[in-house]
């Protein structure tokens, strides 16, 4: 295997890894924040360069295919905008004294480590490596969630940690089982963990063993996806951590775990005797959707509200992939991308809202479009998008999911639609209360308009996707949808 002069795959990993080390060493908030942005941007560029140029043969450890390239690009992009948002967010936190410069050094290093972990999980061609990467990303986010060192933050981190650890263990058990299934066919050793090899030979694997493996993987990685009833860590981790991390958690980490589930779904689909993973995923997706939809109503904390909304959307995505078929898979992929962009935009907005209003309690926030029009309308637009209203992109995916489901399995569409509507009602109710009405809460000056740039950039993308999907992107998605079976 010839090593090209510039290997984008390696760059996607190396840049965050190197900057993590660097950031851990460097003092000073201004410099590190800028460096963080720069490193994220470089990573993003590297990810973009993956699209150009021929792809090499899949390596033993790393590889790039149609599926993960989308994930990597999305991941690095949101990672980049989140770092931009984080810069302005962190400044405010420093000014108000919630964080110390010492915290920041740790924070930025962890940020890049997390990016490294997530990118690694995507490009890993080895299910063991993927597992390690997912766990690395998880553990770094655990540390970030506890960053504020408040009782609540530590509590949330602890909950996340314990539940995550069990998830880690179960996912590992599943990984071992996959190896066991592969080993008689592929042979001992490393080959039996290389994903590309596994898919090739999956048809001859012992289906019963694969089934068992999938159960453990679904529960293990599903915990990270935040599927009910494994979701418990998610709302608190989102609510108590720094907002950039909430954005990254919702927008990216959930995708990482989802990606892992998808990989194994493909594996299972390639084995004719195995249990169909579809019904399991459909069931879990629906349960998550409906459950989260109802949970939205009693929320008081704005970040926790959107954390539950993430559970809801993960439910939708898993449901779509569970349904399978070109249309639903396409819709699931699209929904995943749209959700990442939208939800992170919402969290950016929510971060600013919590800062200008000085509270995360929704009851204390109202009339935002009056006091902070730029922020208020951006927030509203984000909620409109996440609620699945056109012309935003989420609508397109929801349109495809619901209509294709109804054409295939009308009975499944009923809980799906009920869940969507229930969630819709809750979101509209809360968003109206926050954005409109007599202004209340703090009237702190708006942050510089430039800090809204990431929000509007995301929303513009979502809007554009709702109106027009460029043919190359559609091509990618269709290929991937085909891969997913």
């Amino acid at each position: 295997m010839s090593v090209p002069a510039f290997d984008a795959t390696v760059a996607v990993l190396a840049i965050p890894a190197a900057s993590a080390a660097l950031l851990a060493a460097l003092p000073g908030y201004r410099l590190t924040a800028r460096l963080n942005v720069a490193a994220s941007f470089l990573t993003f560029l590297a990810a973009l360069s993956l699209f150009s140029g021929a792809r090499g043969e899949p390596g033993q450890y790393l590889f790039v295919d149609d599926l993960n390239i989308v994930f990597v690009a999305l991941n690095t992009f949101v990672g980049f905008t989140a770092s931009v948002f984080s810069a302005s967010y962190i400044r405010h936190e420093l000014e108000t004294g919630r964080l110390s410069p010492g915290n920041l050094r740790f924070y930025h290093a962890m940020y890049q480590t997390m990016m490294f972990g997530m990118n690694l999980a995507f490009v890993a061609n080895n299910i063991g490596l993927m597992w390690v990467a997912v766990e690395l990303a998880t553990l770094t986010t655990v540390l970030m969630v506890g960053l504020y060192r408040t009782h609540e933050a530590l509590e949330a981190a602890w909950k996340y940690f314990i539940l995550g650890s069990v998830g880690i263990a179960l996912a590992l058990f599943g990984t071992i089982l996959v190896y066991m299934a592969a080993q008689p066919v592929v042979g001992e050793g490393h080959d039996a963990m290389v994903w590309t090899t596994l898919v090739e030979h999956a048809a001859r694997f012992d289906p019963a063993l694969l089934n068992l493996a999938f159960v453990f993987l679904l529960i293990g990685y599903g915990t990270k996806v935040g599927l009910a009833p494994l979701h418990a860590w998610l709302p608190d981790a989102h609510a108590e951590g720094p907002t950039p991390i909430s954005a990254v958690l919702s927008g990216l980490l959930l995708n990482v775990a989802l990606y892992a589930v998808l990989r194994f779904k493909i594996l299972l689909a390639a084995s004719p005797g195995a249990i169909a993973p579809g019904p399991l995923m459909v069931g879990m997706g629906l349960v998550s959707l409906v459950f989260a939809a109802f949970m939205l109503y009693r929320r008081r904390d704005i970040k926790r509200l959107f954390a539950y909304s993430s559970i809801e959307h993960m439910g939708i995505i898993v449901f779509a992939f569970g349904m399978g078929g070109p249309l639903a898979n396409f819709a699931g992929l699209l929904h995943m991308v749209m959700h990442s962009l939208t939800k992170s935009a919402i969290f950016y907005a929510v971060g600013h809202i919590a800062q200008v209003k000085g509270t995360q309690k929704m009851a204390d926030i109202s009339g935002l479009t009056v006091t902070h029009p730029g922020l208020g309308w951006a927030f509203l637009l984000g909620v409109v998008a996440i609620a699945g209203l056109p012309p935003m992109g989420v609508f397109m995916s929801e349109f495809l999911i619901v209509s294709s489901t109804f054409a295939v399995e009308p009975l499944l569409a009923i809980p799906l639609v009920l869940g969507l509507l229930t969630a819709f009602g809750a979101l509209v109710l809360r968003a109206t209360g926050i954005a409109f009405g007599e202004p209340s809460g703090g009237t702190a000056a708006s942050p510089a308009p430039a800090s809204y740039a990431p929000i509007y950039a995301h929303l513009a993308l979502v809007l554009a996707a709702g109106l027009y999907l460029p043919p190359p992107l559609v091509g990618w998605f269709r290929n991937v949808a085909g891969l997913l079976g």
Partner: protein
Amino acid sequence: MQATATLLTVVSALLAVAVPAVALSRRPWAGTLVYGVSLAASLAGLGVALAALLAGAGSELTLPLGLPWIGARFRIDALSAFFLAVVNLGGAAASLYGLGYGRHEEAPHRVLPFYPVFLAGMNLVVLADDAFTFLVSWEFMSLASWALVLAHHREAANRQAATVYLVMAGFGTMALLLAFGLLAGTGGEYGFSAIREAVRDPAVSSLALVLALVGAGSKAGLAPLHVWLPLAHPAAPSHVSALMSGVMTKVAVYGFVRIVFDLIGEPAWWSAILLLALGGGTAVLGILHALMERDLKRLLAYSTIENIGIVFACLGLALAFRADGMGWAAALALTAALFHVLNHSLFKSLLFFGAGAVLTATGGRDMERLGGLIHRMPATALFFLAGSIAISALPPFNGFISEWLAFQAILQSPELGGWGLKIVVPAVGGMLALAAALAAACFVRAFGVSFLGRPRTPEAGTAREADRFSLAAMGSLALLCLAAGTLPGFVIDALAPVTRLLVGGAMPLQADRPWLSIVPIAESRSSYNGLLVFAFIVLSASLSAFAVHRLASSRLRRAPAWDCGFPVAGAATQYSAGGFAQPFRRIFGTTVFAAREEVTMPPPGDMRPARLSLAIHDPVWERAYLPLARAVDALAGRLNRLQFLTIRRYLTLVFLFLVALLLVLALWT
């Protein structure tokens, strides 16, 4: 340039003007800019639509937007041309009105950016030729109007109205989405042409019809999905209320007609009965609500529900006729429905404009605080009166024509097969007649209490006449109402391509009838001549007035009111809106609305005033919506406990889930 492209240009002009509207909305001339552009765009759209309707030239266009493998398809055929005309006519009138009315707006930056977008959305719905574009436009329209409802967001009632509205809109869209999913099938053929050509089971068609009825009906305000309408329509600025009530509900009707008459094929026999029953019930329920209402704009909104009921009843009739192969009768019923669509958009816009003028002049829309406005606002009063006569389905105005056509259609229905229809149709006929009579009562009350009598508050006494733009908008609509009422033949002829497209038949050509009469079937069966009736009334009234003044007496004396010899000076002694409604409340309200009156009469010697307390319950709201909301809340409360478990319990959940899955594996064969 072909019609579709021109209209899309119009739409993009509307969308484009929203951009400067965001930036400049606080400038004083921004309103002129936005409403001016909207007016021009709507007029252009109206021209194109009318040309397309009369010339019968269809055209289509596909843009590389929307769903990638289908594209955004747009098409104009006779049906969409007619509705485009209705939409743009309403849009033009509202924009003209807005030129003046918009100056009184206290939050222009919350109206101006959304107003042209709303117009654009409505146009797009009618233009769309694939399911995705249709739904995007549909929901886009809801969203824009939602933002407009929230223009005066500081009032809690408006926020609640907006929330209920958007949730109901989402519900309706979901139903439509399911309908399209069903029609498109597993292949994802979302283009209307593919849907139209697909062969499907009648059961599937019927299910799609029910879903379309739920989806479009909830937008149009069909009972029992109407609850949002009287909340949301009045909450918006008045010209937007006019658009929502007069035009957006028509777009909803368009959606229904497009799906049911054009796309789904032949539904089962009971669907016509469903439509008829729902339509008749909606008409009566809506107008009864309106009759009890004291808020002028809410009254108008409830009356919209009534009119939508009439339209849907006619559509049901058309469906029944079409299923029985009676193309000519189906054309008659469909013409009645579409004519009513046009009529309602005219007079409801007019009435909302009037209500808006009253609102601006007096600062209130509670009828109990109005009165005597005819002295201060004579022109507004005249136009409002014209609208009131028209909406009460009285000759010589236009409301009567569609009502008359509907009755003519009902009279053709004994030839229909099926026992259900035989029983439902006459009952619906009775309901429509009842609704018409109640509408007359309702608008006697609305006009009489608001404009006649003496001012009940100082604000009403010092009201100022509306500005000239508003008056021009109202005046032109009033004229159009009269024109459509006196020259209905032209409208009927213009509708012929639409009915031919949808039911394969048309009413006979009316334009060559002597004296411009309208004759639905044959002259020996029925005919009506609005022009002559109008001329006769005017002639005999002026003749008799002339004769009396000339031959008898023309002297006039002004004196205090007689009032049986006991005139009381206070304006509060006038008959109030509540008092006017009392007999109706007694007759209909006790059963339908569980209305209860309670008089607290203090004993003699007690100086407290006697009180009349009145309780009216909306059966639909209390029986359906509140329980639903309570159920959601209760369930949310129950599930909410899951937020507060201990880590061990969460682990237990994981554990149980794992064991359950393993059991599934163990038992799975």
